[in-house]
Every structure is written in C-alpha cells, then in structure tokens.
C-alpha cells in the first residue's frame, strides 16, 4: 500500500512538473476522473428525493479528501451562470463511509445554490468540495454512553442525523432523544428511517414538533416541552442545530444545566447595511488569525493599513488587481460601481471595496 502511494505520488509529481498543477487538474477532468493535484472534487453517486422538499445527494470525493466526523460540514462549490458559488452543507452520514458523503439540501426558492442542486445536479456530475470542518461531534471513549438530547430545527436535522446514526451504529443505542421542529408535517425529513431506528432501538425517542401546522402547532422550543419530552438534562449532552434564533433560545434554556452543550447555527444571511450611516464593522483575518474593527465609510485597503496591516497594493484605484484578495464570507460594496458582493469565497479588490457587515478575509 505504502509502496503504491509513493509510486503514485512520484508519477504524479513527475507529470505535474511537466504540465503544472493546473494542467494536471485540467487533464484529469478531461479524462473524466475527479483526480486533482490538491483540490477536492467529488462525483455525485446518487440523488434521493426525500419527499420533504429536500434532496439527499451522495458524493464520492477524490483521494485528496481527508475524511470527516459525523456532525461536520463541507463547503460545496458549483458553477452557476459563469460564477462559482460556495455554500456550506452538513454531512448527514457517519464517518464509517468516508468515501460516501451525504448532504441534504432543502429547496429554497430564493437560493441560487439549492435551486441549482435541485435542478441541474445528476448522477455523475462533479462538484468541488472543501475538507470537512466544524466541531459538533460525539465524544469518543466511555463518554459516548452518556444520554444525549438532539435539538433540530428545519435543516438543522442534517448534522444531527449523522450523530444519531452514529449512536445507533453501536450495539445498543445509549439513551437518546431527538426533538425535531419544522413548519408542518410535510416538511419533516428522514421519516421512514427515523421510524425504523426507533423500532430497533428501544432507548431512542423521536418527537416531531410543528410550529405552523394548520391542524395544531406544538409551538417553539420551551422549558416545559423539554421537561415533558426528555426530562432532566443534568447528565445529558445537548446538541442543537438550526437558525440562529433557535440556537440562542436553546442555549439560554440549557447551556448551564446540561452536562455539555454544543450548538451550531446556520450562517446568518448577508446583511445589507445602510452605507450612509457610519458603522464599526468586525473583520476577521483568517490567515493571521486577527480580528479588527473598521469603519464602513472607508475602503478596506485604507482601513487595513490604518491598523498597521501591510497589504499588497498598487494603483489604489481599482485597475491593477494587486490588492485583490479572497473574501471568504460577508458582504461588500464596490465603491466605484455601487455593486454589492454577497458571495462567499469571491475575489474582491480591497482598494475599491467597503464592508457592509462582518467580513472574513483570506489575509
């Protein structure tokens, strides 16, 4: 095995030294493989319609993918109208199947990416993915036997499904409760599988709660509800995933009394700030690990330099591209055209861009 990989990487290196890493990736794609010099590409193995307005996509990543733990996410990149768009999706399967990644995508009528994944993605399509990230995973060792309470709202079910499946993979599933909120009955995913898991695991309890059901809504997360459906949380590991309001409500109720409290909210939508009003905005510089505060009234280049951060620049008027940098997250305005850029992972020119809200830059 080790001999084989070293041989492989030698021929790969020899080839790449002749045609370059980009050439290597280009020809790999031309020959229909997902191999790449460094980047992770994944082929769509199957697409399942879940009947809850969402889609489960199974992906086989290339060898550059380093594996994942249940409950983590990946960034998925697809090209839509000439622009590559990136969105995060939770993995809903368990790490036992490292060569099979499952993401669940709910159709959002306004979402470009979910619309694209729902209409254009077929078996055999290739998507670019990132390495897995995120810290919402189960403990290892004896601690994994502790009771767990999983709180899911809407698409928050995806990573929790990974955790749940992982718990059910052990011979006897330790005490586990899943509370799963959604608008109404039609929106719940994984119905059959959850029923099946409950039938096989006496210690697993699943409750579906509706918030907007025409027949009868169970209401939003509350103390009584948790007491009634799960009981005391003192020994319990709590995992919550959903929109930021939901996660904050869960945190307020449970973070002090539970044994462990782990939560993840979906990224909030890009805020559209009023550029007239002077505002202080937090900018996270991912490579240097710093966070700084800048005004939304000046160009990012000026703002960064005023904080003593050396950034490459040239013309300072938007023509030479020297100051271009990857914006990982957040919204900016092009001072010159007034155009807004809300895309994740997109390249901006710092000298003519202003922050509209919190930003993450690859600096």
């Amino acid at each position: 095995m080790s001999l084989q990989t070293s041989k492989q990487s030698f021929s790969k290196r020899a080839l790449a030294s002749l045609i370059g890493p980009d050439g290597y990736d280009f020809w790999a794609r031309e020959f229909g493989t997902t191999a790449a010099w460094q980047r992770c590409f994944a082929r769509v193995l199957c697409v399942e319609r879940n009947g809850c307005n969402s889609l489960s996509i199974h992906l086989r990543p290339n060898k550059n993918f380093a594996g994942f733990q249940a409950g983590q996410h990946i960034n998925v990149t697809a090209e839509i109208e000439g622009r590559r768009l990136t969105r995060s999706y939770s993995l809903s399967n368990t790490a036992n199947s490292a060569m099979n990644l499952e993401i669940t995508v709910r159709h959002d009528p306004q979402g470009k990416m979910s619309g694209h994944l729902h209409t254009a993605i077929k078996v055999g399509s290739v998507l670019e993915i990132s390495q897995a990230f995120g810290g919402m995973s189960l403990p290892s060792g004896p601690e994994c036997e502790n009771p767990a309470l999983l709180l899911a709202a809407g698409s928050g079910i995806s990573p929790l499904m990974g955790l749940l499946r992982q718990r059910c993979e052990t011979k006897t599933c330790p005490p586990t409760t899943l509370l799963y909120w959604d608008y109404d009955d039609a929106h719940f995913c994984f119905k059959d599988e959850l029923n099946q898991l409950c039938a096989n695991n006496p210690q697993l309890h699943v409750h579906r709660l509706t918030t907007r059901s025409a027949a009868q809504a169970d209401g939003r997360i509350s103390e009584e509800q948790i007491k009634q459906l799960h009981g005391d949380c003192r020994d319990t590991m709590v995992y919550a995933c959903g929109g930021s309001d939901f996660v904050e409500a869960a945190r307020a109720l449970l973070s002090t009394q539970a044994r462990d409290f782990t939560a993840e909210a979906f990224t909030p939508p890009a805020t559209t700030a009023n550029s007239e009003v002077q505002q202080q905005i937090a900018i996270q510089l991912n490579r240097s690990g710093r966070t700084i505060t800048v005004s939304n009234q000046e160009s990012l280049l000026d703002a960064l330099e005023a904080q003593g951060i050396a950034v490459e620049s040239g013309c300072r008027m938007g023509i030479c591209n020297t100051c271009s940098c990857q914006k990982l997250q957040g919204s900016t305005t092009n001072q010159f055209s007034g155009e807004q850029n809300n895309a994740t992972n997109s390249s901006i020119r710092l000298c003519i861009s202003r922050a509209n809200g919190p930003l993450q830059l690859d600096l």
Partner: protein
Amino acid sequence: MSHVKNRPLSPEQLDAFGAELDAIQQTALQDVGDVDARYIRRVLKTVRYSEVIGRALLYFSFFPPAWILGTLVLGISKILDNMELGHNVMHGQYDFMNDPALNGKTFEWDIAGTSDNWRQSHNYLHHTYTNIKGMDADIGYGLLRLFPEQRWRPFYLLQPIWAFLLAVLFQWGVAIQELELGKVFSGRKSKAVIKKELEPVLKKARYQLLKDYVFFPLLGGPMFFAVLSGNLTANLMRNLWTYMIIFCGHFTADAEVFPKSIMEKEGRGHWYLRQLRGSSNLRGGKIFHILSGNLSHQIEHHLFPTVPARRYAELSVKVQEVCKKYGQNYNSGSLPSQFGQVLYRIFRHALPSKPSSAVPAMGV
C-alpha cells in the same frame, strides 16, 4: 503633430469625458457573466489541446511536414497562452468566476518571466503610470530611445540592433525587466537585494529551459534535436509576435509620453485621457484580435484593464464616439502601417532629436 489632432479640454470637459468612459465600463461590467466564463474556458481548452497536439506532432519529425505543423501549432498555443489567456487572466478580468485556475493573483503562464514580476511591472506600474517618463519602464524597456523626450546617449546609435535582439529574446527581456539591472551596475541596488529578487526569476527560467530544451526533447528519444528546435522556433514565434503587438500598442507616431509633473492633481478624466493618448490600436480580423489577446484594442485595454478583453471590440465603437465628441484622436491603423511607424521611431531616435513642444497639451 498630435497637438493639432487633440483638442485641449477644460476641467469640466475632462470630468464629463471621464464620466462617459466610466459609464461605458460600468455597463460592460454589469453584463459580464457566463458568456465570458464560457469563452475563457474555451480559450484555456484550446491552449491545452493545441500544446499537446503540437508537442505530439514534433515527435513525428522524421516526417518533415510534421515538424513544421507541430512547431506552428505549438507556437500558436504559446501565443494564445501568453496573450488571450495569461495576460488577460492576470489582469483579474476573470476573477468574477471565482475559479482558482483562472485567478489573476495566482495564474502562472508559460513564459520565462514570472507572473509575480509581471503583475508588478505591467499591471501596476505600466497601467498606472502609462507613458510617464521615469515611471513606466515599458518606455523603451530601459534599452531603447523611442521618444525625443528621452535623453540621447551614444549607446542609442546602435539601437536598431538592440531592438532586434529585444524582439528575438522578448520573453527574457520581460523576465529581467523587473530586476532593473542598470541600478545594480550603477550601484543603486545592493547585492543582497538583487540576490533575493533573482531567486524566483532563476527558478522560473530554469524550469522553462529544462521543460522546452531538456525534458520534452528527451521524451522524443532519437527525435531529440527535432523536438528541441521545434520548441526553440515556437518560442521565437511567440517572442516576435508579442513584441510586435506590444510595440504597436504604444510606440506609433501619434503616441505621446508625459513628464512626471503631469500626475500632480490628476483626476479620473485626466487619467483616462493619458491612457488614450499613450495607446494605439490595430485593425484586423477576429482571429487576429484573439491571437493578440485583444491588445489590438490597446486603447480599450488601457481604459478598462479589468473588463474581459473579448468585449473590447464592442466597446471600441462607443469609445470612438466619445473621442469624436471631445475632439480626441483615436489612434488606430493596420498592422503594417502601425509597425512601420514603430520602426521609424526606432531608427529616427537612434539619432539625436528634439521634442516639438516641451509638454503635450492636455487641458486648458
């Protein structure tokens, strides 16, 4: 001569002139999208496939037409890689796609010069300080005297020879331009600095030399020399072509140079005007434009360096209207005529010459 062709503009007129060009750029940028993405992918594909086909043909050089065809295809592939792909991608024209393989900051091309040096000397210095004497090193590349405003020295008497050598070795000229070796000889640059700057340049040069003159020829076995000479000829083709296109873009009869003082209080309209007066276009067919990386539309490229170059032909119609309205010369001509003017400059200014007036009139 050019002063008669260009009407001096008042500050208000300059502002209006700039605003009209801004608007043209804005409309173009708003429309940028999947057509441009598809186009540059097609160019990339053509570059990759033609390189493989050209190189493969060279391995059949025992049959002479295969050598000729292989060399030609490889030469065209290198020209496309240099001009329509590399040059334009490195300007950030396709950054909107967010594709790491077509990112202006990281793209690396198949010529001796490193992309990083090019981004500094070309994208920044040349495009910001276009045709300003003492700021834009592209004026004569530190080797030639093309404008009477440059001080004459006896060295320039032989400049037709220097110009010829520069054309033949153009990629190597680009490779060392950023090093400013003149400063090292005159002692204005320390040994330590030049050593550090040389490192990436030598690395790239070594890679280029090994690739074209050792590795690929060795793969040819008995065809070693045929492959080597094919690569050499293809590189020469690309050198001569890019030299000709670039010189025609800036050193025709009506092209102007400017003193440093022109930058004092230079507004946007004024900057546009300087770009316009420092550039010249070439007329030709579609294939000619593509092979020149659309630098045949040098004027549009200098006005809008971050707009995908495939749009320049379309934009040139609007730019010409604006030029007419503001009484500005739109310097355009056929390749023979423009290149003839370049050659005239090379020969004429080898000998002492005087500018017709000290400062070209820009505004009133």
